[in-house]
Structures are given as C-alpha cells and as structure tokens.
C-alpha cells in the first residue's frame, strides 16, 4: 500500500523550545491514523508542517508522494483546531470563494457546494452570515470546506474542541461518514473516544516523538482494568489472590485486575466465591487505550498492556467485548457505538 504521509526524523523548535524531536510517521492510503498526545505535544505543529505553513528544522516530509507541500494543498483538506472563519460571509459564499481559490470550474463548484451543504446539514443556513451560526454549524462548515475538492488526504486537528456532547456526537458521526468515503485521514486529538471510534491506527506523540503506535482494532472496547469491590479480605486470602498473577493487587475491600482480562477476572471471582466473600460490585476502569496512552505519556512501560500478538488472549478478549459496552466507558464513545450498532442492524435489515 502506498504511503500518503511519510515523515522521517522531523524536528521543529520555536526559539529554544524544541517541540518535535525526530518524528517518524507513515500513514498509508485509505488509512485513518489518530495522533494522540497531550496539549502542547506538537500535534498542530506537525499538521502545519505537513501543510507547509511551517518549515522543519531537519527531517523529511513527503505528502502524496511529493516534497513540494504547497503544490499538494489542493489534494489536502484541512480542518483546524479552533475553527475561525470570515464572519461576513454566508456558508455558500465562503465555499464559493474557497472553490475558486482551488481553481474549480464554476458549474462543478456549484454542484459540489450543494452536495456538501446537504451532507453537513447546512442547506437551511446556507445564506446566513457565519457570525450568526452556532459553533456546531461552524465545525460542520469546517468539514464542508475541507471536502470541497474531494481531497485525497484530510488533516483534522482536534475536531470536537469546544463542542458539547451532542455537538461532538454529531460531528463524529459526520466524520465517520467521511471516513467511509475512503479518504486518508490524519486525526490529531487528545480525546481517546474520537480515536477509538474513527481510527484504524493510533500513534502517541509525546516528548517530541511518536513513542508508540497501536492498531485501534486490537484495543477497541478493551477495558483497561477492573476493580472488584468486596467485603473484608483477610491477609491470607489477599496473598492467595495476588498469587494468581502479577496483574492482581488487593487491599482490604477490593481487588484490582490491571490489565484486565476475563480469564483473570474469572479466577479472582472463583477464589472469592470459594472463600465466601461478598462481591459488591465489578467496576471497569480506564479503557486499555487510555491506559496505554497514559503510561506512554508518563514514560512508563506498556509491555503488559500490548497483548495484540497473543492470539489466544485476543480471541478471549474479542469474545468478551462483543456484548454492549459497559456503563463506565466514555459516554460519547458509548453513544457513538450504540448508534453504529443501530445503523448496522438497520443496514442488515435492509439487506
């Protein structure tokens, strides 16, 4: 598969502040790649470097097979983090101007604008000034403008920044539609739910480098850890439980399984039942991806969280995750996944 984005040894500093310190990144055609990182990690800097707004101190960038980034911009759609537009235009006027900048013929442009306004649900407000539109509408306009030339590559920076839960859901559903059109996407975010919902692969950008890359399918839905709330646990019982595996830690009224697996959970529950201990609750904690992310950002080892190459474990996990997501999963992700399940059921029904 051809790589749409190739970044090698990229460094970038602002004065004495070094932001990127040797980033290596490859995004294949048709792939949706999520770049996770805390605020200030350099995600937006990387996007601006890919667009040619910034120049690297060293390293190599090739986008769509070319190092001439300015020349490639027509094939790139860009949705910035803080979406600010020219307030004294209507969405239709604004898109018309942008299409003309792109050199689109007028007849094609008019048709395309109608399609995009329809897709983003902005047809009703197409002739209202942008300053009168809600933040959610402005975010959707961001998607419309990015898709104007039907670009090969979409660079999306913190798409749901500043939106309420409904707005986030709406936008992510829309981005999921976009994703299914086969665009290559680089999504920069610090929201794990967005990555889990939209991305094929995720890279964690920390300390100026992509410290870790994970296939999202391998960790999607995986609960990171489980807390079993119990009645009082005496010392011998706690020692017995901790003997099951190094993933298990006990205190006086709880057992923590981290990273969680259904096998370990079953063993713990068995021991607790045999010991006639009251089990008050099972509380899933952070998702696996969240754990991986947090440990990577803190510079801690993640080996025991990366279980993707252990086929039997994966099989067990896949079996375990097929049921509906737990209540403790990110509320946005939960809503999105429920919607996706609904959609696929509807689709199956039609077929």
């Amino acid at each position, binding site marked *: 598969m051809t790589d749409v984005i190739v970044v090698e040894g990229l460094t970038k500093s602002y004065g004495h502040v070094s932001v990127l310190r040797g980033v290596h990144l490859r995004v294949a055609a048709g792939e949706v790649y999520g770049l996770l990182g805390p605020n200030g990690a350099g995600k937006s800097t990387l996007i601006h470097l890919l667009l040619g707004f910034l120049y690297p101190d060293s390293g190599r960038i090739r986008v769509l097979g070319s190092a001439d980034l300015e020349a490639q911009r027509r094939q790139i759609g860009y949705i910035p983090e803080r979406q600010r537009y020219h307030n*004294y235009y209507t969405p239709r006027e604004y898109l018309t101007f942008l299409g003309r900048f792109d050199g689109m013929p007028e007849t094609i442009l008019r048709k395309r604008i109608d399609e995009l306004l329809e897709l983003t649900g902005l047809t009703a407000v197409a002739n209202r000034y942008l300053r009168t539109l809600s933040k959610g509408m402005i975010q959707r306009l961001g998607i419309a403008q990015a898709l104007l030339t039907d670009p090969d590559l979409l660079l999306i920076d913190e798409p749901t920044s500043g939106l309420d839960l409904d707005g986030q859901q709406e936008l992510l559903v829309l981005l999921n539609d976009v994703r299914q059109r086969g665009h290559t996407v680089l999504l920069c975010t610090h929201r794990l739910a967005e990555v889990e919902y939209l991305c094929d692969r995720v890279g964690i950008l920390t300390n100026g480098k992509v410290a870790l890359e994970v296939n999202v399918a391998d960790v999607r839905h995986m609960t990171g850890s489980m807390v079993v709330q119990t009645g009082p646990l005496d010392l011998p019982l706690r020692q017995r439980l901790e003997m099951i595996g190094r993933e298990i830690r006990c205190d006086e009224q709880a057992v923590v399984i981290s990273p969680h697996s259904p096998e370990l959970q079953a063993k713990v529950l068995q021991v607790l039942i045999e010991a006639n201990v009251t089990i008050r609750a099972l509380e899933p904690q952070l998702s696996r991806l969240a754990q991986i992310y947090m440990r990577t950002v803190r510079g801690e080892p993640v080996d025991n969280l990366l279980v993707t190459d252990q086929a039997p474990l994966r099989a067990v996990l896949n079996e375990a995750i097929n049921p509906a997501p737990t209540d403790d999963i990110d509320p946005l992700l939960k809503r999105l996944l429920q919607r996706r399940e609904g959609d696929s059921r509807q689709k199956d029904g039609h077929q």
Partner: protein
Amino acid sequence: MIRTGKQAILLTGFTLLEYLRSGRFFLELTIVIASYVVFLRPTGTPMNAGYLFTVAGIFGPVLAILSTGFMIGLGDRPQGYIILSHNVSRGAYLIGLFYAACLVVLVMYGILCLLVALTNRVVDLDLIGWFLASLPLILNIGLFSALTILLSPLVLGTGWRLFVLALIALALSSNVIGGPIINQLEEINPFLVTILRAVQTVLSGPLVPIFYGYQISISGSFSEVSVWANLVAQSSLLLAFLGLARYAFNQRDLIFSVS
C-alpha cells in the same frame, strides 16, 4: 505566475467584500471627509494645484499606512490558514492584501478629488494635469503600502523589522543631523563622519524617488525626462519592496496572530 496573479485578484475581492461588509471603511471615509473639511473646503480664495497636491501627497501615504495596517490585521488571523490550505500561494496571499489596501486608498483618494472638483474648483488644473499629477502620488501610495507590508509582523520577525527600521532611520538622518552635529563630529572623528555620510548617501538613495515624486505632483511639471525617469524609479522601488516582502514571507514560518 499567472495563477498567483489570478489568486491575488480573487483574494483582493474576498478581502474587500469582508472589509465593506464589516463597515471598517467608515474610518477611512471619515478621514477623507475630515481632510476635506479641514484643508480643502471652499474658503472664498481660489485653490491652486500645488496646495491640493501638497495635502493629497501627505493624505495618500498616511491613509496607505493606515489601510494597509487594517488589511494586514485581516490577513494576520487564524482564518488565513483556511485560505492558504485552499491552494493559495503565500505570494498571492500577500499581494492580495496589498492590492486590497491600495484599492481602498485609491477609492478614498478618488472621493477626495471628487469632493474638491465638485465644490472647490482648482484654478490651474485641468483633467489631464490632475491625472498626471496623481501618477507619482499613486505610486507613492503603493510604495508606502508595500513598505508597511514589508515591516509588518506578518512578514518580518521583530529582529529584522528593527533592522530595516534602523536603516530607514539612518537614511532619513541626513536631514536631521545635517549641520552642527555633523560639524562637531567632524572635529572629533573625521573618518566616522566620512563613513556616516557614505552610509547615509547609500541608504537615502532608494528614498529619493519617493520625495521627488511628491515634488513632481506638487509642481505638476512633466516636461523633463527626469520626471518620467522618477516614475520608473518609483515603480522599480515598489516592485523591489513587494519582492522583498514576498521573499521574506515565503521564507518564514506562518504563525498567524490569535485575536
């Protein structure tokens, strides 16, 4: 080159439409009316061309600096990233802002001239004379606009901006520290004075077309070859400023101000 030109014109239209709709032009219009009322209104005594172009020669560049500042403000916003991501080159972006600023000033100059023509007839000026005298003035407007763009934070970093400003100050200093100070300095260190005068001469060279252009529009005399040569020099200087601004803008990281 053609693509850049086309994009620059498109961007000019785009910028001007926002400029008009946002009502920013009211400030310029107020300045025009104020300039007319204070300096060019009918006073009972006939006005001559020299006086008109003395006022217009100051009005034009001042308004050019102001309007270009506004346009740079419009260009130096995060909204610019969206525009640039739509296949607009950096050069077209900058030139578009320049065109927009110049057009606004030219329209305002036109309004000022119209007000004068309608209410306060200039005794020694016909239509052709008006047009010819306006030529160096218009080029000066372009020059001041280009210089303002060059010296804007959008184009030059702080260090370079201060450096260029220092060069301009040094070029203009021959008028300020001409007589007594230079004489005193000559007694202390003649070599330093020689160096200073050489630097002043070199640096003030590019400014000559601006001042001479101002004189030409006031005198209204276009019979000498040097007058036409000065128009060429003004045009060349304008292209040089724009070229320098474009080069500097191409070389730097694009980090728009967050308002």
